[in-house]
């Protein structure tokens, strides 16, 4: 029925676009909500924490904004991906197209929401931040795409399992709330004691946010060896995700 791959990409795109549209449908401000939500969080946190950290950190507000935008992409994308399979129950039980389409579509939808935020962030950095070279902006883009890969891997790993274990989203919500504070979003990595620091890298976003901030605000790309390891871990997670998804997708439909 779906031999032609082109159809599948078309279907993925149509699903992502329809969901993106529906998500902000009917609200007066439309997709600006995609933007206003992280901006509002930023304003509140900035009000509270800029006094606390402003002494030692240059561009604290912009660092906070960068962290929030990247974290928000991960948090919303992973949650959407986790629920993508179950959320499309009405379609999956009636149609037999390859099931990865709904997962990739949800990740694509998150990417579309993030794209708006990304341009705002770059605009704010160029206006108020340090002088930026092109390579710094390209690295910021690369880190964003890396987050996309993490979201995709996570979604593939969990979305089919969520059909069976319906409290995964509750667990993930708690982990996300904790994860926000266990990543260097509000604070710089340097305030953490050396002995504890390595534990924070268990949070997949710690590495990305720390280095994205380093590239933008210190203009330095440190530890290329760690970057390679991180890429390797993401690649393994992706392959594992594909394997888990392929293994559980068939039966998962029966739990919908």
């Amino acid at each position, binding site marked *: *029925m779906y031999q032609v791959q*082109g159809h599948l990409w078309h279907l993925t795109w149509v699903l992502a676009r329809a969901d993106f*549209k529906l998500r902000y449908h009917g609200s007066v401000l439309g997709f600006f909500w995609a933007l206003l939500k992280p901006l509002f969080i930023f304003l509140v946190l900035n009000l509270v924490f800029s006094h606390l950290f402003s002494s030692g950190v240059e561009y604290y507000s912009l660092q906070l904004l960068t962290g929030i935008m990247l974290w928000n992409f991960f948090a919303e994308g992973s949650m959407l991906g986790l629920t993508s399979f179950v959320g499309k129950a*009405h379609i999956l*039980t009636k*149609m037999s*197209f390859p099931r990865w389409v709904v997962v990739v579509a949800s990740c694509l939808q998150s990417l579309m929401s993030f794209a708006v935020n990304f341009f705002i962030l770059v605009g704010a950095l160029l206006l108020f931040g340090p002088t930026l070279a092109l390579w710094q902006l390209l690295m910021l883009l690369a880190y964003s795409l890396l987050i996309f890969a993490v979201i995709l891997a996570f979604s593939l790993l969990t979305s089919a399992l969520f059909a069976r274990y319906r409290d995964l989203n509750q*667990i993930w919500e708690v982990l996300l709330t904790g994860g926000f504070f266990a990543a260097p979003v509000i604070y710089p990595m340097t305030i953490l004691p050396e002995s504890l620091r390595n534990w924070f890298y268990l949070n997949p976003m710690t590495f990305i946010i720390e280095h994205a901030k380093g590239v933008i605000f210190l203009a330095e790309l440190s530890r290329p060896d760690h970057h390679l390891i991180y890429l390797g871990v993401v690649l393994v997670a992706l392959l594992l995700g594909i394997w888990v998804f392929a293994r559980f997708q068939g039966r998962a*439909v*029966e739990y919908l």
Partner: protein
Amino acid sequence: MISAYNISKSFLLPHLRQRSVRGGLLGFFERTTHEVMEVVKDFSLEVSSGEFVGIMGPNGTGKSTLLKILAGVYQPDSGEVKVDGKLSAILELGVGFHPELSARENVELNGALLGLSSGQIHRQMKSVFEFAELTNFMDMSLKHFSSGMTARLAFSVAMQVQADVYLVDEVLAVGDQSFQEKCLKHFRQLKQEGKTVVLVSHSQALVNEICDRVITL
């Protein structure tokens, strides 16, 4: 065109199912009791090219489950299904329809789900709405459509699908007299074109008229 050998499919009764991580973990320690419902039992079916087969039977005898297995939505516990040629399963009309989207967007979405390419959908867009007699409502959101209008639109999209084998479930149960006649006309045309159809229906009259063979479950 379709060969199915010794298909069996059982479901665990859903209210006893453990659906949480806690339940799954506990499941290692204590065996949960569940009732097994065998919905399809050792079923074999052979449909040759150009044949129209009707599947009838009372509720709960596994007609829809069988069709879902043939369509590849469910995997059988045992047995084998083979389908030659392009398969189109219309288990429900208007899958993916969303009330908040416009009629045009819904046609795009539903068409993509049915396996139409973007080129095909855009080429057929006008004729879809003409056939459904809804040309003036293309950009209206679907929530303002009556159920009959929605059904007409859904059927018009489903008609655009070009396949060799069609699996159809109770599609004709919806719609008024003239809509049902339209559907019937479409099936007759499929028959003339030598397509293969497996049709689940409760309508004896319909099955008698267009099916070469009837299987009662």
